[in-house]
């Protein structure tokens, strides 16, 4: 009884805000519903439309997977690198840690507007400096080939969370292991490969899986960068087509928003939502299989 009392807020919450809407999403995916006229049953019509006729879906899926691959890999590698660097710094460790961590806290909208300004091709500080040094200046958020890399740079600026996690993991590696490896004549590279990496492997795995799931929710930065770079004012009622330029930054979460709340195609939005759900749960089950490490002694 006590247990039930303690769990009750969450039991209600999970039913009302998780189970119910999830089942509704499945139900809506079989309906044609424009949110004004009554819904009608259309069977698999929304599914065949989204999966076989609607190019935007495949573009969004490709972009989402691109972001997952590029952002997660570069963030984890860079995060380990920064973690290593900060553990080696002997003077001003705290200051460095703070400076590397701070951008992670910057509100995503503010950080994105800042980057859209700094990377703005005409007058932005980055291209001004690159131009002065004689490096070719890309169009960043205004160029369909550079928009995704520009967003990846923004994600790397916010790598502070991973740096802290890896720093803690690196400091936990027993020093004796390094001493033993050094006595055996292992150089820095081999010590990293055969001592550090195996010891921090669980944390790397954790960072990869949570990174994948976070990146599948990638939304705010892509929307805001597209709006600021395209200069389209998003007043209520007007519709900014997400994915600027040329759909290059369109992701699955943005497609859900666009289909459901701009085009009022509820059924198709729910189809995309369920694809996103399937992808997220596939990766979550990967994480759950490692539950021993994640959930503690169970």
């Amino acid at each position, binding site marked *: 009884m006590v247990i039930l009392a303690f769990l009750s807020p969450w039991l209600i919450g999970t039913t009302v805000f998780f189970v119910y809407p999830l089942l509704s999403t499945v139900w809506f995916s079989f309906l044609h519903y424009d949110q004004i006229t009554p819904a009608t049953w259309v069977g698999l019509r929304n599914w065949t439309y989204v999966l076989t006729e609607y190019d935007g879906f495949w573009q969004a899926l490709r972009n989402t997977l691109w972001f997952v691959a590029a952002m997660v890999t570069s963030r984890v590698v860079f995060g380990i690198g920064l973690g290593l660097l900060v553990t080696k710094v002997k003077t001003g460790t705290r200051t460095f840690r703070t400076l590397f961590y701070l951008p992670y806290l910057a509100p995503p*909208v503010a950080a994105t507007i800042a980057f859209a300004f700094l990377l703005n091709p005409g007058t932005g500080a980055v291209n001004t400096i690159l131009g002065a040094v004689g490096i070719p200046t890309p169009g960043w958020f205004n160029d369909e080939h550079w928009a995704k890399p520009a967003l990846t740079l923004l994600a790397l600026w916010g790598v502070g969370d991973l740096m802290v996690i890896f720093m803690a993991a690196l400091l936990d590696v027993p020093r004796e292991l390094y001493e033993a490896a050094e006595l055996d004549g292992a150089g820095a590279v081999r010590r990293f490969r055969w001592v550090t990496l195996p010891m921090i492997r669980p944390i790397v795995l954790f960072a990869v899986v949570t990174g994948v799931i976070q990146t599948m929710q990638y939304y705010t930065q892509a929307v805001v960068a597209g709006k600021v770079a395209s200069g389209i004012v998003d007043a209520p009622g007007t519709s900014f087509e997400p994915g600027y330029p040329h759909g290059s930054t369109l992701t699955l979460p943005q497609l859900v928003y666009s289909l459901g709340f701009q085009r009022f195609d509820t059924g198709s939005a729910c189809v995309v939502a369920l694809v996103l759900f399937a992808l997220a749960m596939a990766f979550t089950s990967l994480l759950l299989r490692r539950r021993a490490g994640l959930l503690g*002694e169970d």
Partner: protein
Amino acid sequence: MGSTLVAPAVADAPALERPHRTPRARLEWIAVHSLAVGLALLFVLPFVFLLLTSLMSDHQALTTDLWPRTWRVQNYVDVLRADGFLTWWKNSLEYAVLGTVLTLLSSIPVAYALARFRFRLRRLALTVVIATMMLPPQVVIVPMYLVWARQLHLDGTLWPLIIPMAFGDAYSIFLLRQFLLTIPSEYVDAARVDGCGELRTLLRVVLPMARPAVVAVGLFQFFYCWNDYFGPQIYASENPSAWTLSYGLETFKGAHHANWNLAMAATILVMAPVVIIFFFAQKAFVEGVTLTGVKG
């Protein structure tokens, strides 16, 4: 570069000499620190350029100049006086404070139950917590919106975002539980022997020991609300008087598209509370982030 995690070889360094006295160690010290300084500069420069631009005149902000010719502090006053800005500030604060308090009140007992009690279906409960934690909010947004807006008529307000927080937040439950697992069960057992009820044990014994975790989770939730863009966009976009700073900032930029100086001043004003709170609660943050990855 050799690893300074490794103690210097005994043959190279006499016992009492400081490690960086050897030529190789000194070179390494220089290499590591210059790399760190260079990277730190790259991390800080965006903030510096923002700050500089926010102080430029309207005209100069449109040029490639990096350094302000006149220092126009008035930009900040203009932003604070701009339509809606203070209202959005108030809304953000309301959303973040109410959201954080409700999340903590509802999540702490759940986390305690999941960490301390053994019961059937506990594994299932944990699995559901993790599944909800990993669920992209967009998956369930369509039916959620239809209920809040079409049946309860709460669109145009932030209540559809605040109310659910009174029913536990998966991420907070997970983090708190991970921390509560590390508290030795002897303390809880002792309280029970002394005749403490579960609620009193939680409030008097466990909670005081879990303070760092509660502070960290509270801060994370506060910033989650403060930074939220998707939620206010879904529920409040049609009613500017319910916008939050995060959502309003982007539209502010849109409405003042020719004034990068004002946009940057506004951007700084949205970042400022986060940075200020961080400097006061740095330890809690670092502990909290570490908790997410390392514990267990």
